[in-house]
Structure formats: C-alpha cells, structure tokens
C-alpha cells in the first residue's frame, strides 16, 4: 500500500508590520502585526506564526495576530479592510501582480492559431500594455506525434509566429524571450505519438 501526502496548492498573501510603535527610550518593546489576506482569486492560504515556543495558525481572510517581543502570538482576530490598509496599505499597493499566463492553441502540424486563440492574443496585448514595463516569455510546444527534432523546430516556429504578431502590434522586441520545448513538456501527459490538441500550444507569461 502506498500513502501519498498532498498539499493543496494555495497562494498565501501575508502582511507584516514590524516594530509598530514606541519611538524613543526606554528600549522599545516591539510588537509585530501579521495579517493573512486572500489572493486575487479570493483564495486564502494558511500561515503559522511562531514565537516563544508557541505556534498560532491563521487560515481565514483578514485574520490577524499581534506578537509582543518575547511572548507567544496573541489570539487571532479578523480585522476589516480599512484596518488592513492602515497597517500596511503602501506595502500592499507596491506588491507586484503575479505573472499573467495565456495559452494559445494551434491547428495540427501547423503554425496557424485557432480562431479562439487569435482572440486571446488581444488580451495578451492589452496586458502587456497595462503592465509595462514587462518581461514576456513565449514558449512553443507540440503534442507527441512525430519526431523530437521535428517537433522542436515546429514549436519554435509556433513561438516565433506568436512573437511576430506581438511585434507587429508594437511590442518591444527586447521584452520578448522566445523558446521552445518541442514535445518534451506536454500540458496533458500522453504516451508518445498521441495527437492531443491541448498540447499543441504556445504559453505566454507576462511578468
């Protein structure tokens, strides 16, 4: 029998305010405030705050603990958004957005995009413009039908096709990083020589 332990993937958004008060002598008894927030998708992960040998788990949106120097973490409470902003508004505002990912699909053995994917390209261009300055990676892939070398070349052509459309619409060439993975990195795992439209793709990441 095999036991496998999984960790459900979940993002964590946390805020810390260190040395919150006490400007002058005597030596400030510092206290820190730690806040757990949901990510952009509204998912809240979990964190554990440890001090003085005690662990306190936070897993609800807005859950907050205060830790006094040398003491265990206080009891968690949920605080409203306004208070969150008062605690760490500027840090939150300065937090870069996670990279935006797009997948574009191609017709079999071709560098032609599917009609739906042509539409997605418009979103890519808007994202590049909205987030400038950016780095954009364009990675070409194929399914497992055909030889390794052929598919490496095809996936590179796919990546270059997408890149040239982006360039044609005014994207700065220096922000594009174009690579190909051939058939080595299928999105949907299949055996060799298995046609799979979901693997015939270009993945674009905008950072």
């Amino acid at each position, binding site marked *: 029998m095999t036991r*496998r332990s999984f*960790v459900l993937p979940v*993002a*964590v958004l946390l805020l810390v305010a*260190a040395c919150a008060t006490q400007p002058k002598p005597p030596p400030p008894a510092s206290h820190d405030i*730690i806040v757990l927030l949901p990510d952009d998708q509204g998912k809240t992960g979990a964190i554990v705050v440890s001090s003085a040998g005690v662990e306190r788990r936070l897993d609800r949106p807005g859950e907050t603990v205060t830790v006094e120097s040398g003491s265990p973490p206080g009891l968690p409470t949920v605080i409203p958004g306004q208070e969150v902003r008062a605690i760490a508004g500027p840090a939150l505002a*300065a*937090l870069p957005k996670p990279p935006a990912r797009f997948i574009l699909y191609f017709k079999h053995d071709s560098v032609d995009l599917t009609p739906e994917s042509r539409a997605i390209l418009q979103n890519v261009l808007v994202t590049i413009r909205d987030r400038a300055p950016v780095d954009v990676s364009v990675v070409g892939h194929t399914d497992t039908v055909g030889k390794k070398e052929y598919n490496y070349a095809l996936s590179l052509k796919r990546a270059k096709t997408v890149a040239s459309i982006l360039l044609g619409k005014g994207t700065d060439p220096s922000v594009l990083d174009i690579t190909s993975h051939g058939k080595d990195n299928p999105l949907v795992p299949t055996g060799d020589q298995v046609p799979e439209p979901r693997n015939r793709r270009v993945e674009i990441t905008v950072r």
Partner: protein
Amino acid sequence: MMRNTVTAAVLLGALCLLAVAGTAAAEETIGVVRTTSGDATVTRGKKTLPAAPGMKILVGDTLGTGADGSLGVILRDDSSLSIGPGSRLVLRSFQFSPSEEKFDLVARITRGTMAYLSGMIGKLAPEKARFETPTATIGIRGTRFAVKVGEPSSR
C-alpha cells in the same frame, strides 16, 4: 593634498561599483525589482544602490525604504514581495529549482511593513518558506490531506 584624496576616493568608489555590478552579473538572479516609489534602495554588501524597475536581485540583498518609499519585487518562483515606507528587509536565502527539488525562501524584516504573495514555492514546498520578524517566525502551510492507494487485490 585634500583635493587629490577626495578625487581618489570618488574614483575608488566608482571602481567598486563597477566591480559589484560585474559580480552581480555572474551570480544567480533570484528576482527583479518591479515597482519603486520615493526613497527605495537595494543594499548589496557595502554598496547601497537606488532601486529601479528591472534591477536584478541577488541572495543577501537588503531592500530598504525611506519615510516616503516603497518597493516591490518579483522572485523567480513568481511570488511577489514588497515593502512600505521606513522598512528594511533582507533576502537571506532563495532557491528555486524544481528539477532538482531545491526550494528555499527566507526573508527577514527588521522594520517597517511588508507584503508577500506566494508563488511556486508556496505551492510545491510551502514548508520551505520562512519569514522572520523581530518577534516571530512565519511559515506557510498548505492544506494537507493523505491518500492511501491500495493494491489491486484489496479492491
């Protein structure tokens, strides 16, 4: 003479900066600055440089801000980290190599405020991420569950 000493010191300073930049290119980048506002700096060894979008971040770098500053970086595992005004944070360690199963992230904030949005390390190896404050240590936990896979004959 005084003037020559000052000129010599400035030249030496410039050379040191060049040397640091050269070393930086050879070491592995762990992230890049994405947002800056007001007084924001990156300190590497003895050198403090103004932070600018696009600037590469290395292990050991200290991110700092003045009373009006803020600074945001994206790390190689696609997590993001930022500091508000009057802050100081050191990136003590960082490793992200899924093919070698190497994951590590330790950041220490000594003053001010920070925000962190986890990425691939938070998904693949959350127990390898740690944040240290003057009073506490913070770890990330996913939601764990176990699966028991029986042998075919037991069905």
